[in-house]
């Protein structure tokens, strides 16, 4: 859906994007991750054609990004807001028409969305009379109303209350199921695993790692395994104990091994005490911290 090659963006003193290559597959929910100031917003602004790259090229579908593509993109910026003095309905129609919808079409769709999100009575209100949560819903509707093929959410959950966060997560996933490609930028990892199927991690203007989420987590697997056994186990061979707990069905252990603990598994299985054995994949949070703190691309465990 989006392919960036060699995209570079320089601001007066600093290099915001250093020749990055990214590819965001069609239909994916893509987590664009990175700490604050990594260059996520710079890249998002380039996709939205708010700024132009100094070098490199962005492709939308199979051709270069063009001005009229903005009608096919929905963008919820990190810094968001609405005209306070304008009525909600008018504002939604105005923003939709700027994206190229006709008034009639915009009205039809807006009414549907307002029904869905239980905000039909907002229509005639002024934005300044809405609560923060209500305004957030309006903002979300304005982002998706023109049924864009590509949705870009920059830190969508900052400032949203828990109820709206859930609502929007649900709606994002629904839009994804309906075929939209979703880019989801954040420096908070909690929701990434439940929403994203692809991630790209940027740090200091460079892509540190990119690909399907599961593949990446597998690539960063560092020999951690979990066991559930009926009886307590004292000796684990060359394994280092990370965590253990006792519960009514038995004991759980998490251990780190130098290599695949095949012998341990077969011994426990032979004793008949092994209930479950599982490879523990690192969380996105772990990978994120590891990469950012080490400041360089890690060579993943093979």
């Amino acid at each position, binding site marked *: 859906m989006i392919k960036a090659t060699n995209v570079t963006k320089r601001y007066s003193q600093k290099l915001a994007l250093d020749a990055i290559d990214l590819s965001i597959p069609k239909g994916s929910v893509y987590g664009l991750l990175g700490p604050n100031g990594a260059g996520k917003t710079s890249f998002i602004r380039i996709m939205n054609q708010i700024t132009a790259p100094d070098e490199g090229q962005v492709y939308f579908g199979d051709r270069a990004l063009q001005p009229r593509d903005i009608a096919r993109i929905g*963008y919820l910026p990190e810094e968001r807001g609405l*005209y306070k003095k304008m009525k909600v309905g008018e504002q939604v129609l105005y923003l939709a028409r700027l994206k190229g919808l006709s008034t009639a079409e915009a009205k039809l769709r807006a009414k549907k969305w307002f029904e869905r999100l239980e905000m039909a009575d907002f229509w005639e209100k002024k934005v300044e009379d809405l609560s923060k949560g209500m305004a957030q819903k309006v903002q979300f509707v304005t982002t998706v109303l023109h049924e864009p093929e590509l949705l870009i959410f920059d830190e969508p959950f900052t400032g949203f209350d828990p109820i709206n966060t859930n609502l929007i997560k649900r709606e994002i996933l629904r839009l994804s199921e309906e075929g939209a490609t979703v880019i989801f930028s954040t420096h908070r990892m909690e929701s990434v695993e439940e929403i994203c199927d692809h991630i790209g991690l940027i740090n200091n203007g460079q892509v540190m790692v990119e690909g399907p989420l599961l593949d990446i987590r597998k690539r960063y697997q560092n020999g951690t395994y979990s066991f559930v056994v009926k009886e307590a186990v004292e000796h684990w061979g060359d394994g280092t104990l990370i965590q253990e707990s006792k519960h009514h069905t038995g004991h759980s252990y998490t251990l780190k091994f130098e290599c695949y603990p095949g012998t341990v598994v077969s011994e426990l299985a032979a004793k008949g005490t092994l209930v479950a054995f599982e490879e523990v994949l690192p969380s996105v949070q772990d990978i994120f911290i590891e990469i950012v703190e080490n400041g360089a691309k890690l060579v993943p465990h093979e």
Partner: protein
Amino acid sequence: MNNPILLIIQREFLSRVRKRTFLLVTILGPLVFAALLIVPGILASMPEEDKNVIVLDEAALIVPEKGKNEYQLEYLDPRENDLGSAKKFLVESSYDALLYIPTGENWDPDFIKNNILLFGKEDPSINMVQFLDGVVEDRLNKEKLLRNGVDPEVVAQSTTQVSIRSYTIGKDDEEDQQSATGLKMGLGYLAGVLIYFFIFLYAVMVMRGVIEEKSNRIVEVIISSVRPFQLMMGKILGIGAVGVAQFIIWVVLSGGVYFVVTNFLFPEMIATQAAAGPEGSGLNPVTGFEIYDQLRAINFPLILSGFVFYFFGGYFLYSAMFAALGSAIDQEADSQQFMMPVTVPMIIALVTAANVIQDPNGDLAFWMSMIPFTSPISMMIRLPFGIPIWEVILSGAILIVTFFAMVALASKIYRVGILMYGKKVTWKELYKWLKH
């Protein structure tokens, strides 16, 4: 396909015109303006309360002058009173003020003129002081004339008031036109002040709009749909349209008022004036008809179209600058330090208005009306005096060219500024954005 600039213009226009304050300002604005012009005049001409002044005229200078309606003069006997007892008398009496005219040695008029005192229970009004000055001056003048052996009566008879009637000579077959310097001065000044006022009003509106979008944080949503240049131009044009709407309402309203006044309220007055004719008015220097005659000497279509042109030229030029400024700051409170240098040219144009009026074809006037930052005001001041058409065209062309250059510059700053938050902006910083 919706044209985004048109959509933006429409929003900017409607969101302002539909406000109640727009209607209020549009209707009350001219009333307030008229009141500002008329009320001080009315106040000044209102009769004051009667004041009784007691006079201790040791020099026997103005005795027995009675004063006039509001100022009654009465006299204390100088043989029985001195300044001290007269002051005591004033405090105890119901008189409002005490005028003390001393006599020097040898009754020297210059000594007297320098030592006249006025004591009031309250601050004496300026009108009263002027009146008393007049009375004293008149007496002293006559006294001096007499001492030099001149009969004041002769002087009074030989004082002559001259009123030259001037004409601008018509070229070829045109009629000579009565020149109307006073009227032109007034008109020029009025047009200059109005255009300053309008440009400032609407350009600041543009700046406010930009700051509003920035501090509301809606700007990034908008510019993900339209280009920053389109947003800026849409805003400038939309607010310009508000100005046009306001202007049209004012023209229609004042036309309506004029129609009502001339047809229903004072129809006989107009009729008398028309009947009097040019010869009838010959004896009286300025009658209504004369003003009518003078009005004919002024090229109103030129002035009106000049007004519209220079309003737009000046407004576009300044609003582009103000839009760039607005984009550079987060809070309206920060705007002051940047607005000052930008508005200085307009203020200079206003301050030099008097010089331009005095010599509308002089060097200062010429250059001020060529420099695009001052020309909207200075040229409007000159326009009623009739100036060579090539100057108007040149000045207009310079204004248009500068406007386009300014929009190009402003949009560069704007583009960077609207996405920049929490940064204290300096002029140096703005210059850097230009080169981005």
